[in-house]
C-alpha cells in the first residue's frame, strides 16, 4: 500500500463517495446514477465483470473502498462507449471506469497480474519513449511480460499472425531498431512530466 493510499484512507475514512468525487476522473457523477442497470446490460464484456458499472456505483455509495479499487472489473472496459450513449442520466461511465482504474493503480491497489492493467502500462511506457507507439516492441513486451519462457511460447503461438502481417507490410522488423518517433521527444517528455506534477500536486492537496 502506498503512502498516498494511507493518507486517503485517513482522510475519507467514512466516505468513499467523497473520495471518488475528489480524486477520480468524472467521479462527481457517481452520485447521479439511478441504478437502472442499462450500462451493465449494454457492456460487451458485461458477463466478465465481477461488478458491472451499476454495481460499482452502488459499492462506491456503500463505502466499499477496497473491493472497488482492488477489483479487476474496471479493467474489463474496452472503451466502446456503449454505456455512455445509453445512460439515461448521461453519466460519462467509460471515463469514470478509466478514472477508477487510474486511481486504483496510482494507490497501488489495482490487481497485480491483471493483463489489461499490465498492457496499459506497457503501452504507456512504449509510447512515452519516442512519442509514438512502436507496435513491434509493444507486441513483444506483451508476449514477454510474464518472463522469457512464456514469452517464447506466446511468440510462437502468434508466429503465423506475425508472418502474415509482415507479408502484408503491416509489420516491420526495422521497428525493432529505432523505428518511428517524434523529433521533439524531450519537449514531449517535459510536457508529460509537468502534467503529471500538476496532477500529483492536486492529489496531494486532497490528502
Amino acid at each position, binding site marked *: 500500500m502506498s503512502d498516498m493510499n494511507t493518507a486517503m484512507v485517513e482522510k475519507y475514512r467514512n466516505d468513499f463517495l467523497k473520495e471518488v468525487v475528489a480524486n477520480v476522473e468524472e467521479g462527481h457523477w457517481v452520485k447521479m446514477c439511478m441504478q437502472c442497470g442499462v450500462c451493465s446490460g449494454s457492456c460487451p464484456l458485461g458477463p466478465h465483470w465481477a461488478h458491472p458499472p451499476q454495481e460499482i456505483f452502488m459499492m462506491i455509495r456503500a463505502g466499499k473502498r477496497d473491493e472497488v479499487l482492488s477489483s479487476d472489473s474496471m479493467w474489463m472496459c474496452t472503451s466502446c462507449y456503449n454505456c455512455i450513449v445509453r445512460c439515461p442520466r448521461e453519466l460519462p461511465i467509460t471515463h469514470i471506469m*478509466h478514472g477508477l482504474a*487510474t486511481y486504483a493503480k496510482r494507490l497501488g491497489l489495482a490487481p497485480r497480474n491483471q493483463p489489461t492493467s499490465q498492457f496499459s502500462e506497457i503501452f504507456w511506457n512504449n509510447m512515452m519513449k519516442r512519442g509514438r507507439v512502436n507496435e513491434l516492441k509493444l507486441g513483444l513486451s506483451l508476449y514477454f511480460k510474464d518472463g522469457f519462457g512464456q514469452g517464447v511460447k506466446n511468440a510462437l503461438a502468434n508466429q503465423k499472425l506475425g508472418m502474415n502481417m509482415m507479408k502484408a507490410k503491416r509489420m516491420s522488423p526495422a521497428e525493432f531498431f529505432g523505428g518511428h518517433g517524434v523529433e521533439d521527444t524531450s519537449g514531449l517528455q517535459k510536457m508529460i512530466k509537468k502534467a503529471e506534477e500538476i496532477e500529483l500536486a492536486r492529489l496531494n492537496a486532497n490528502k
Partner: protein
Amino acid sequence: MAKYEYSYYPGCSSQDGASSSNLKRSIDTMCEELDVKLNEIPDWNCCSASIGYGSGGVLPRMALSARNIALSEEHNPGQDIVATCAACWLATKEAAERFKDDENFFQEANTVLAEANLKMTNQTPIRHMCEVLIEDIGYDKLAEGVKKPLEGVKIAGYVGCQTNRPFGIDGESFENPMYLDKMVESLGGDAITTYEKKVQCCGGALAFSEPEKSQEMIKGIIEAAYDNGADMIATPCPLCQANVEIYQDQINERFGTKFEMPVVYYSQLIGVAYGRSAEDAALDGQIIKAKKLEDIVGK
C-alpha cells in the same frame, strides 16, 4: 490548389510498416481522386488511444492531444484537423471538448504545452475522414466518380465503436448508423443494411490483453456477416479492421469455425470503384484477400 484541404493526423498505426499502413495508402489514393489535400501535422505524437489510462492520468493523456492541436494550429492554421483512426479522432476531439468545458483544465493544458514552447487556442474543429466524405463531399459527388461500380458485392458495413460513439456522425443514430451502407450504395455495391453487429465492440485493446474474451466477440461479428450473406466486411476503423481480420486463424482454431471473411476499409472500396490498381487501393495489405474486389480491379 486542391478543392479541399485539411490538417491530417494519421496516427501511429498508419505509419509505414505499421498495422494499418494499408489504410493510409488507400486514404492517399482516395484523396487524390476526390481532390483532397492532406497536410500532415508535423511531428504529431500518439494520442495514447483508449488504453493509456492505466499509467497516464487525465491531464497527461489530454496533454498529448493538446500538443497535436497546438502543432496543427501553428503549422496548418485555419485547417480542420482530420483523423482517419477512430481512437486518434476520439481522443483528440474528447480532449478539445474538455478544454472547452473546463477553463481551468484548458489553462493547465497550456501550462503543460509551454514546456515544449507550444500553445493552443483550441479553436480547431476535430473531424473524422468519414465526416469529410459525407458532409464536405457528399454521397452524390462520391457516386459521380465511380468508374467500376462494385456490382454484386455484398458488403456488411461494420462501423464499430469509437467512430460511432460517443460523438458519431451528425444525423446518424448510435444504435443503427447507416452511413457506411449509404457509401457502399453510392459505390454501386450491395449494402447489407440488416447487419446486426454493425456497432458491436471488437474488443479494442483487450484483443491483446484478453484474447479469449475478445475473440468471442469477434467471432460474433464475423458470424453475423456470414449469416447475412456478406462477401466482405467494410469498416472505417483501423483497430476494428485488424482485430476482425487478423485473428480469424486463431478463432477458427479456438472455436472450430472456418472463417475466411475479408475485412476492408471504406477507402479501399472507393479506390477500387474509382478504377485504381490493387496496389493503390492497398488490396495487397489484406491478410485475407478480398477476391471480389480484386476481380473488379482486373476487369
